[in-house]
């Protein structure tokens, strides 16, 4: 059919407008895909903050509170676990490993975690991914520290630097442990989790810097820890513990055991379930992103409609001419409809291309600057569905100018509007 070639030539003749329209669609498709990607990845980043840990144990409090201070390092613990209970629980034959967490100190607004070297082995995030060192290694000496990627980047620290910790968790602290400086021993790779914003030291170090302190105040005249003479101390209390079971099946039995622990009021939570619960409280973030996606898609389709409609009046002459040459009103209808669908298709394909280009460029930057792990992967099925729906809808919108052109074709006949 020569009509199709004519339609193609006509489109080619208006290529600047066509390409600009397709570009505007491409940009919105790119935005839709990116925002959707952010939505899905933010959710998975969030719910994968901690994986491979079967239970988190802490003093009895709300499940969310325990999760917030132990995993997200937000807020403070209301109570502690005694070292004795910790050891007793760790001796349970079903427990594979336990990692203690001791919180309460900070360094320039970043939380300090007292723990053991086992933390670097057992703390996992995303899909059972282990922590890895970009520089240096786990702490060995008493006053060694391992810092997260954001701490290192923001404060410009490198392995070998000496830093002082502060008591409490404010950005500015007036009670510093500056008599006992720490040496940075290792830098962790970015993870997209609160680990990036943490400094890790040994439990012994936490005890050492608090020797001669009581209730957060340095006691006057009390003798502090002297690295030369004092021996490393066992902690009396810790804040929380991560637990890995030998068998997942034992998780709930052990959780009950902890919850009913007679020596002191403790509780254990399943982190995955509590993370999901927390995310559902943040549902509004998700719905806001979805609303943005919908609005972006709408604006691009409106743009498409505007461009075609605006061009229509100019094309009344062309329509009359084609009619005189034997084009039916239905030809005119098909011409306009096909054009809209074609532009939408072109725009969508370009948009997918732009999206991947953006993803490939941005994913290392996002990881480096925000610690957000964005994976470059195949378009998920639901996004392909969105795109198809967008193209179909654009084609349907094309029916509006097509219908108008059809009416012109019938009412103008061969009368040329000049």
């Amino acid at each position, binding site marked *: 059919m*020569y*009509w199709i070639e*004519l339609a193609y*030539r*006509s489109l*080619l*003749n208006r290529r600047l407008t066509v390409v600009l329209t397709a570009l505007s669609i491409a940009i919105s498709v790119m935005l839709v895909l990116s925002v959707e990607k952010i939505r899905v990845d933010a959710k998975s980043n969030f719910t994968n903050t901690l994986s491979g840990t079967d239970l988190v144990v802490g003093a009895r409090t709300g499940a969310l509170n325990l999760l917030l201070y132990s995993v997200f390092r937000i807020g403070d613990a209301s109570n502690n676990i005694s070292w004795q209970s910790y050891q007793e629980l760790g001796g349970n034959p079903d427990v594979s490993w336990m990692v203690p967490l001791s919180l309460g100190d900070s360094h320039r607004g970043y939380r300090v975690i007292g723990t053991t070297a086992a933390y670097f082995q057992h703390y996992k995030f995303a899909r059972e991914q282990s922590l890895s060192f970009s520089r240096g290694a786990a702490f060995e000496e008493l006053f060694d520290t391992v810092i997260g990627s954001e701490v290192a980047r923001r404060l410009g620290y490198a392995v070998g630097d000496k830093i002082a910790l502060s008591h409490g968790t404010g950005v500015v602290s007036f009670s510093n442990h500056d008599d006992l400086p720490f040496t940075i021993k290792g830098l962790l790779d970015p993870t997209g989790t609160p680990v990036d914003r943490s400094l890790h030291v040994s439990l012994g170090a936490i005890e050492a810097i608090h020797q001669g302190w009581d209730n957060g105040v340095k006691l006057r005249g009390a003798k502090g820890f002297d690295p030369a003479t004092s021996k490393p101390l066992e902690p009396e209390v810790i804040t929380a513990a991560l637990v890995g079971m030998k068998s997942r099946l034992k998780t709930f039995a052990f959780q009950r055991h902890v919850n009913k622990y007679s020596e002191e009021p403790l509780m254990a939570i399943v982190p995955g379930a509590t993370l999901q619960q927390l995310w559902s409280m943040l549902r509004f973030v998700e719905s806001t992103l979805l609303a943005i996606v919908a609005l972006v898609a709408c604006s691009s389709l409106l743009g498409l409609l505007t461009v075609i409609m605006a061009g229509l009046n100019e094309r009344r*002459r*062309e329509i*009359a*001419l084609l*009619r*005189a*040459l*034997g*084009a*039916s*009103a239905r030809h005119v209808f098909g011409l306009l409809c096909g054009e809209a669908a074609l532009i939408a298709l072109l725009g969508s394909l370009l948009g997918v291309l732009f999206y991947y280009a953006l993803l490939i460029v941005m994913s290392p930057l996002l990881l480096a600057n925000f610690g957000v792990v964005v994976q470059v992967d195949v378009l998920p099925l639901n996004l392909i569905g969105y795109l198809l729906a967008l193209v179909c809808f654009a084609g349907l919108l094309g029916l509006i100018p097509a219908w108008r052109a059809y009416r012109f074709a*019938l009412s103008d*006949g*061969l*009368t*040329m509007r*000049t």
Partner: protein
Amino acid sequence: MTDVIDIDDLQFRWQGASASLLQIDDFKLAAGERVFLCGQSGSGKSTLLNLITGVQDGYSGQLQVLGQEMRSLRPAQRDSLRAASIGYIFQQFNLLPYLSVLDNAGLPCRLSPERKARAIASFGSVSRAALTLMTELGLDADCFDRAVSSLSIGQQQRVAAVRALIGGPELIIADEPTSALDTAHRQRFMQQLLATCGERGISLLFVSHDNGLREQFDRVVSMEELNQGGAHVLD
């Protein structure tokens, strides 16, 4: 031989209108006849042309084009009748800007197999038919490959005439094709168009309100006399 156009008691009114816009008792255009149809705007001219070309339907009475009653044809049949048998020249803006001059001239042969066959039968090929007609109508060979937009209005109207003539349609309708031309060009254009139609026995229905052109035609028909309809309303 059947008349190219045969109208008998043709009536047309818009849906819902009480008075007829068109009421033509009798009008015939014989094969090879060249008729000058004059009329003021609002005389029903455009409607008549739209009915003859089959772009408009919904009339009563008889309207036969090449022996076919237009009302009895399906829209698609009317469209192919128009493509195959009617050449149409507009007042201006006749050419598609995205095609070359030669492609514009040969366009009806791409859209209608009958006209292609006739062009090949008479000239050997479509492009030779276009070139021959363009020369006959006084177009220089150097504008054949040029962009349509670079042609003068006079040259554009000639290309439009070639397009109407190519593939030997039975009827050419020219709707004020000379109104955008100056007097000197108008005379030459008219002579060439009339001569070419005459040589090939093509009927010409020439619509204009420029009475200076009427002497060159076989017959002059005034729309006001032809149309008995009450309508000297705007169309």
